[in-house]
């Protein structure tokens, strides 16, 4: 199928506007991520209907910059890939409209990609060759989702969180401990000098076979340990640096125990021999070490997303090549599939 050399990918599913150029051999030539808001005041308080103003302002400069940094010309683009699911309606629409327009103007195929699946494809890019079938684990601020991936483009959800995502728990605990946003990296840093056994936080669902997660209770337990149980007269010790370090270490240990335990269960239940892990929490060093330890015990292969492709980016949308190569092209009446998180 086709002889395209360069793929332009566009990712606008949430609050970041991102574009990348990826060569057919999955080599990333450029990856631009814009998160800053610069043009606020120009628009006053008027809200355009169902369209994300932030993405509208950034999308063309971001695409331009991706093409420029890749050192190609726009006419060199042979296929356009865009994330259409899941995300915010207005945000996704801006990306999809830009992608459709470029696909028409350049007369090249359009492919649509699932944002969550793209997080796992970051692992395939690190491996440099096909890694599927595999258990795929996306652990981020928005997702804690385990998939059985038959191929890069076919996956079944095995289980996910029933309340907060793991990355969200890291950030909220960081806020409880008075750390700056984003809190995940701060927790990891403080935990290194803390005692992970200082507080015994619950490992929710760890010892039941269902592949599901819950981090809301853990977050509340840290809150009460840090600030005291509401209504209780027992005085709470001052939140000293060493207490913060102990809370961070104990929280991180509890969260990681559950994440690792569920991966192990998923591998055993499905018999898959490869585990790939992506999403922002996959950048956490303690989590990466615990994963390494678990897979070596099970004799299973681990493929981690490179740290630079753990958070939202368009490079992981190289997944679009898999659709292109299978001839799975999108029609021009393709629409976005917003907010429904579990499909």
């Amino acid at each position, binding site marked *: 199928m086709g002889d395209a050399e360069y793929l332009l990918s566009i990712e606008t599913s949430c609050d970041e506007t991102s574009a990348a150029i990826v060569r057919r051999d999955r080599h990333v030539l450029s990856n631009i991520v814009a998160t800053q808001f610069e043009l606020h005041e120009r628009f006053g308080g008027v809200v355009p209907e169902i369209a994300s103003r932030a993405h509208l302002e950034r999308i063309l400069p971001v695409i331009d910059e991706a093409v420029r940094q890749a050192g190609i010309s726009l006419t060199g683009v042979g296929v356009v890939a865009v994330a259409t699911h899941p995300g*915010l309606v207005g945000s996704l629409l801006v990306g999809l409209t830009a992608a459709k327009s470029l696909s028409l103007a350049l007369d090249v195929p359009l492919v649509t990609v699932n944002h969550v699946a793209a997080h796992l494809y970051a692992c395939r890019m690190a491996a440099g060759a096909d890694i599927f079938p595999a258990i795929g684990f996306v652990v981020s601020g928005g997702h804690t989702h385990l998939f059985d991936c038959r191929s890069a483009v076919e996956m079944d959800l095995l289980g996910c969180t029933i309340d907060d995502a793991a990355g969200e728990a890291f950030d909220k605990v960081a806020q409880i401990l008075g750390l700056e946003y984003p809190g995940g990296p701060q927790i990891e840093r403080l935990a290194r000098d803390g005692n992970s056994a200082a507080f015994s936080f619950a490992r929710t669902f760890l010892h039941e076979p269902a592949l599901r997660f819950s981090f809301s209770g853990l977050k509340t337990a840290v809150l009460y340990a840090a600030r005291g149980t509401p209504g209780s007269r027992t005085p709470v010790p001052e939140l000293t640096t060493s207490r913060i370090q102990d809370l961070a270490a104990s929280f991180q240990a509890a969260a990681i125990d559950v994440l690792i335990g569920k991966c192990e269960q998923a591998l055993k239940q499905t018999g898959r021999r490869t585990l790939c892990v992506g999403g922002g929490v996959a950048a956490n060093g303690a989590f990466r070490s615990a994963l390494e330890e678990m897979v070596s015990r099970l004799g299973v292969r681990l493929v981690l997303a490179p740290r630079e492709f753990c958070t939202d980016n368009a490079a992981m949308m190289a997944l679009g090549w898999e659709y292109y190569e299978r001839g799975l092209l999108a029609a021009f009446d393709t629409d976005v599939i917003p907010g429904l998180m579990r499909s």
Partner: protein
Amino acid sequence: MTSAGLTCKLVSESATRSLGLALAKAVQPGDVLALIGDLGAGKTRLTQSLALGLGVPSDTVTSPTFTLIHEYQNGRLPLRHCDAYRLQSAEEFADLGLDELFAEDGVAIIEWADRVSGYLPRDRLELRLSVMDETTRQVEMTGTGPRGQQLVATLAERRPW
């Protein structure tokens, strides 16, 4: 009959659940519910109970803190669940087009609504949750317009939930 405010104690998680189920019976398309309360006050829990009452399995209703909006189309009414916690400014609410939340066919529920109050429809039901002790929450409900007040009155009339 309309009423401006109603304050009650939720003595357990099952009381929070009852409130969510009562809300689910009372809401109509276009209604906006604004949740205000600190971390751990039970905002997501209340939303899960509302969802359950609308026919959406509550364990499928997860926190939209990072993803910003989750939409559930499988209940009696479409439910759109938003969280303003992570926004760095109220303007971001408009910049990201989050007002998609207020589509007329469904019910919108917003956590940390006080952070974006200037961008919310004027007529809404505000639910202010506070933690009394480990299991008890207090909820203060205020209608900020005719429809919000009607919801408060309906909930008051139908007590105990």
